[in-house]
């Protein structure tokens, strides 16, 4: 989207006349120049998928695709929340165990205390909000570096989980609704309807914006490009829903297993909501500003402390949702929930997707794409049948190889000066 400032005097650069041809041309020039957005992550995903499919044909099945979503869901959700914290250049080491605490609350409320599922979910999310508020206050108001605050949180929450779990026991989660989240699927019809709604909504937004800008005489993308974008989304969603609606039961007589896993629309809705918040509201704009130059943001009258606290709240709340999904998937909560590699995987997902640890750069979509990369690696490695030592090594190497794709394209960007 470009605009000519003063039309009488010709600027030195070539201002593209908005035609389809010039648009495609321009995009290609941007790609060659290294300004590539989500492309490297997508390339990474494709490369990994092709690699694993060749190594293990069972990777390339509808069943495995469906598994992929549920396996990666918890980490992806936590990563989505972490993006907000990372956008400010902060870190939340406690997000993993915060999800554990929320899951433990969920399990206690629903199983031990016997309340209905929505009370449990509410308690878990409220716990997340409280945790985030405390962390945020300590970082913003007391001024302790977030690494230290959340390291303390990392330790303390671990202890809280243990205490909530009676020093190490597991608590089963057997509530049908909760178990369904990560284990059941939408009916095929519902899947198709949701996809249709999504495409229609996207089309409406795009066309409205196009009309709005055109009406004011601002530079717009050609309508054909807008149409192509809408069609692209329709195709992607269509194929995904179609594949997920295939029968993937091992034994159709015993059970029919098809449809979009319920976590998929959950992630999709959160993705849309958070993307909207970041890109289309002034709150989101302020997050980028504080992350880019906190002093400039302060001078612009932005309440930096409030922004800082809010991102920790968002992060911990998303961790709570991640914890709920993890509990659902495991049908139980154990003291390790949210522990081991969850945090590093979540931060890694955000960073692999393109979020900067220094703040000011990143999108929620990054977390989803990065989460997909992490999930694909984990999923694929699970099919390879390596011993655990070798598995760790190969996982590391594959992760590195995937990141190299990204690094090389970004190096191009730096070389041509477009960052």
């Amino acid at each position: 989207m470009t605009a000519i400032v003063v039309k009488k005097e010709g600027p030195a650069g070539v201002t593209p006349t908005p035609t389809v041809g010039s648009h495609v041309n321009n995009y290609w020039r941007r790609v060659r120049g290294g300004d590539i957005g989500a492309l490297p992550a997508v390339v990474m995903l494709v490369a990994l998928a092709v690699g694993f499919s060749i190594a293990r044909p069972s990777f390339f099945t509808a069943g495995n695709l469906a598994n992929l979503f549920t396996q990666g869901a918890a980490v992806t959700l936590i990563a989505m929340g972490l993006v907000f914290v990372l956008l400010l250049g902060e870190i939340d080491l406690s997000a993993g165990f915060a999800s554990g605490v929320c899951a433990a609350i969920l399990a206690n409320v629903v199983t031990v205390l016997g309340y209905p599922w929505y009370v449990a979910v509410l308690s878990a999310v409220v716990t997340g909000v409280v945790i985030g508020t405390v962390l945020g206050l300590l970082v913003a108001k007391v001024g302790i570096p977030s690494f230290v605050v959340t390291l303390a949180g990392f330790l303390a929450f671990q202890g809280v989980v243990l205490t909530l779990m009676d020093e190490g026991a597991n608590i089963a989660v057997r509530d049908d609704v909760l178990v369904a989240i990560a284990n059941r699927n939408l009916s095929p019809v519902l899947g198709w309807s949701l996809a249709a709604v999504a495409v229609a909504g996207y089309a409406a937004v795009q066309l409205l914006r196009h009309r709005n800008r055109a009406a004011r005489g601002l530079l717009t993308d050609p309508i054909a490009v807008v149409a192509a974008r809408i069609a692209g989304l329709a195709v992607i969603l269509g194929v995904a829903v179609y594949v997920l609606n295939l029968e993937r039961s091992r034994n159709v007589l015993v059970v029919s297993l098809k449809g979009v896993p319920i976590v998929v629309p959950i992630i999709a809705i959160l993705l849309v909501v958070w993307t909207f918040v970041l890109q289309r509201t002034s709150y989101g704009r302020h997050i980028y500003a504080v992350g880019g130059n906190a002093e400039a943001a302060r001078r612009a009258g932005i309440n930096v402390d409030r922004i800082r606290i809010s991102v920790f709240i968002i992060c911990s709340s998303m961790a709570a949702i991640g914890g709920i999904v993890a509990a659902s998937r495991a049908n139980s909560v154990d003291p390790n929930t949210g522990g081991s590699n969850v945090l590093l995987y979540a931060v890694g997902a955000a960073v692999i997707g393109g979020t900067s640890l220094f703040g000011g750069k990143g999108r929620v979509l990054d977390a989803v794409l990065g989460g997909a990369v992490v999930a694909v690696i984990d999923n694929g490695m699970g099919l390879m049948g390596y011993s655990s030592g070798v598995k760790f090594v190969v996982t590391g190497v594959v992760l590195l190889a995937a990141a190299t794709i990204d690094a090389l394209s970004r190096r191009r960007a730096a070389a041509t000066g477009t960052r």
Partner: protein
Amino acid sequence: ACGDNGGSSDEAGGSNAKKPKIGVILPDSKSSARWEGADRKYLKAAFDAAGVESDIQNAQNDKTAFQTIADQMITNGVNVLMIVNLDSGTGKAVLDKAKSQGVATIDYDRLTLGGSAQYYVSFDNEAVGKLQGEGLSKCLTDKGVKNPSIAYLNGSPTDNNATLFKNGYDSVLKPKFDSKEYTKVADDSVPAWDNAQAATIFEQQLTKAGGKIDGVLAANDGLGNAAISVLKKNKLNGKVPVTGQDATKEGLQNILAGDQCMTVYKAVKKEADAAAELAIALAKGERKDTGQTVKDPEGGRDVPSVLLEPKAIYKDNVKDVVADGYVTKEELCTGAFAKLCTDAGVS
């Protein structure tokens, strides 16, 4: 050198020179609920009853923390140190240090190879594994599966106990794999005994095997439950036998529901009581005869021992665990499980 603790409390533990003090280091709290949930409780009760002071700590699967705690206990002036080692190396370092300072020691649950403990009190971990292997083949036979495909969900690759369990079930199952009676289709370790990872690992085992897994050797109830959650998703629960360990509430419920075939119950209270008794005796400067020894292959020493038998639990003897007081009926037989409890004769 043990038992001679007079005059040692001149600088460190001066405040309570009269009352004997016993330190216990538990290994972790996440691989099993028993350490914090049962052992701590029973040991504390036994020590309190005998009127000795006790300090029970948990090393959280961290060797450095383990050694630090040991240092602190010695500093704090314990007379007897009871450890569950994380590995023989650190275990030996701790035992030797304690010995050099005149502190008596007991190996609890795990034998420290090349160590110097006065006593060894344990369940035999390989025996646990053996029970799991035997349990799985019994369940498969009951189901009448021909040439079953078996998947392993081993414990943490960095946990020596997981290796011992595996040695146990391998000793039962390996001959069957060799004779082609069974087929092993997957064999993965679960880092840190993490249940969430276990679910993913098992899901991938299932995908890789094209859905054909007939029996799951899960190293404990948590891993077993993770496998069951995936089986449930594929509506295969109850059709594929799953093993476990620790007789957790969740595991027992899975057994009652028919989703899990067996678990291994270790009567922790007995183990704790036996160990406490020995420790109290040592603290008072007495020596007890256990009548049994275990050979330390590395140190070449016969260690006086108390060895307890683990017990396999199937649906029909779940009631034994309840009768033992390890799990109460109230917590086990909640909601839908009330009827199952009655059916299984749990009272």
